[in-house]
């Protein structure tokens, strides 16, 4: 896809989209609370959060389908306050596809070109081009009611992409598909993004979609952005308990700060003293109770590895869950807390799986993440 002139001249660090203190109220409900966010040109950004967190409202504000209660939004440097929804050129892919049921596949895609006043002579060649790109040219004359969910998804994408926009808005586009097809479409979407150079603004509540496709993830909860970062960063360094629990297979435990010295903290965790780097600085003082996260795949049974360093804790094997390549151990700690350890089945020593048996576990203190308190 050729670069738009405006895109070619935009400086690399100038954002394509910016939200500046954007709020949205529906009656008494504050759906969005002073959102600040910048999206770079060509970026694949995933906005993730539980239902009702405001992620879809953010998308609808950008498309002009809702008006912000306060704040400012810009698209390619233009203040959107004065630009009507129909003039924004922010095509959207809808969760239920929103294809026109009384039109054929071809007419649906053509509709998008007519909407932006494409010269009649170019219509059919451009529709053909995008039907081909999405592998649905054989369905051109089909009625929408006669094609499958996966095919509808492709028509919806063709209808949006045929406008060759700078930004594509996607509202949980894969949610209506079955799991197997969803994974396949993830790969295709990622490829489409790389090939087209179009900015993807992707709203989802599936962690796996955000982690596998996005350049940056925006985690939202209750109308606020909780954390923004690259997928690995979000997964490995969650900022709060919410992110730790929502984004990964994290164990969140309570620990007491016994001592604070320079940039080192001594924590008491299940009665064991653990020394960690203080990543929270002055947010934390001696005597505080702090949430600590350790990812399930970073916890190992001691017998399984011969590392002696690290945090060593005693527990009881309470249950296991075999899922092919991995086995999850549920380990009950001295105070009754149950931790999850995800182990690669191939690396597991035999004879460990006796339920109720004592099990010593360990993890590297570097894999412990101190969480900021919420609110």
């Amino acid at each position: 896809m050729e670069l738009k002139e405006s895109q070619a001249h935009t400086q690399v660090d100038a954002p394509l989209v910016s939200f500046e203190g954007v709020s949205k109220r529906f009656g008494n409900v504050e759906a969005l609370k002073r959102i600040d966010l910048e999206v770079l040109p060509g970026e694949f950004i995933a906005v993730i959060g539980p239902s009702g967190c405001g992620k879809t409202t953010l998308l609808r504000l950008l498309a002009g389908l809702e008006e912000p209660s306060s704040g400012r939004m810009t698209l390619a440097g233009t203040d959107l306050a004065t630009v009507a929804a129909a003039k924004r050129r922010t095509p959207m892919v809808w969760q239920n596809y929103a294809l026109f049921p009384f039109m054929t596949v071809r007419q649906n895609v053509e509709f998008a070109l007519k909407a932006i006043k494409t010269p009649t002579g170019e219509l059919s060649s451009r529709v053909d081009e995008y039907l081909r790109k999405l592998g649905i040219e054989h369905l051109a004359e089909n009625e929408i009611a006669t094609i499958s969910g996966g095919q509808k998804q492709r028509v919806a994408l063709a209808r949006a992409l045929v406008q060759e926009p700078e930004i594509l808005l996607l509202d949980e586009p894969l949610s209506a598909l079955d799991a197997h097809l969803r994974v396949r479409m993830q790969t295709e979407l990622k490829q489409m993004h790389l090939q087209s150079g179009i900015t993807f603004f992707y709203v989802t509540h599936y962690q796996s979609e955000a982690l596998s496709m996005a350049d940056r993830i925006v985690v939202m909860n209750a109308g606020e952005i909780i954390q923004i970062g690259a997928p690995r960063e979000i997964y490995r360094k969650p900022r709060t308990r919410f992110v730790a629990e929502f984004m990964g297979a994290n164990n969140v435990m309570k620990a007491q700060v016994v001592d604070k010295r320079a940039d080192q903290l001594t924590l008491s965790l299940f009665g064991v003293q653990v020394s960690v780097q203080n990543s929270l600085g002055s947010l934390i003082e001696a005597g505080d109770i702090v949430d600590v996260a350790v990812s399930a795949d970073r916890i190992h049974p001691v017998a399984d590895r011969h590392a002696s360093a690290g945090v060593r804790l005693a527990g009881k094997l309470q249950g296991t869950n075999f899922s092919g390549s991995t086995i999850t151990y549920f380990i009950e700690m001295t105070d009754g807390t149950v931790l999850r350890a995800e182990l690669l089945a191939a690396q597991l020593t035999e004879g460990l799986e006796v339920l109720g048996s004592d099990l010593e576990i360990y993890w590297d203190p570097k894999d412990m993440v101190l969480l900021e308190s919420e609110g």
Partner: protein
Amino acid sequence: MINRRVSISTRIARIAMLIVGFGFLYVPILGLVVFSFNDSRFPSLPWSGFTLRWYRDFASNPDIVASLVNSLTVAVQVGFFALVLGSLGAYLVARWEFKAMNALLGFWIMPPTVPTLILALALLMYFNQLHITGTLTAVILGHTGLASAFVVAVMRLRFVALDPNLEEASVNLGFSRWATFWRVTAPQIAPGAAASFFIAMAVSWDEFVIAWFLSGFDTTLPVQMFGVLSGYVSPMINAVGTFVFAVTTLLVLAALLILNRPVGGKKPLEVERVHADELSRKEG
């Protein structure tokens, strides 16, 4: 199609019920139709031969023909006004989320259940204040209220079935609200609107009580028929009755055909099946 096997006795019972039901409804009307072609002054058996003379009488009676033309013009206008009024009401009921909406809907579709005599009397007193009684305008207004109830009932379902995302998708792609209405909304509600128009016409076409109260010398066909009946009874009335019945049937049939029209060249059930097949084949 239901493929369950049924015993002979069940089948006979079903057919018998069908005959009894339809017989109860249509035998009297069938009698009217038959006698409209009977070459005898008296509507009684035995059959005295086939004739079209009652229809010729009907066509050459200037009063009857004038009232027929009145009925048609009234019905067309009622169809139009009831469609506009009823569609607006249906749109409100379908889109406006408001707790008392169901109660309001109930009131809107109530007029057909109020005894027509009472409705007609109320309209007569009201229109008297406006000095429009005794005109076809009054009849049109009276019928519009009655017929709009049927329009609301049909159109509400159409509006509820509309996916609001489709209109938003059209605006999102770049069409104005107005263009969106014509390109996206109108094609989806057009069949319902056409059917509603015919139903409203049918309601007006054979309505008698309101028309009798509100019309003056210039009257509609059912009122004219009543006038004929109270004087000298000619079998011509059977011919007029058959004609009225035929027109009503045509209007209602047209409405039913439109409402049950298959979507995208396929009946709804077929679409479901094709869709399921495709799903299991292409993604399974």
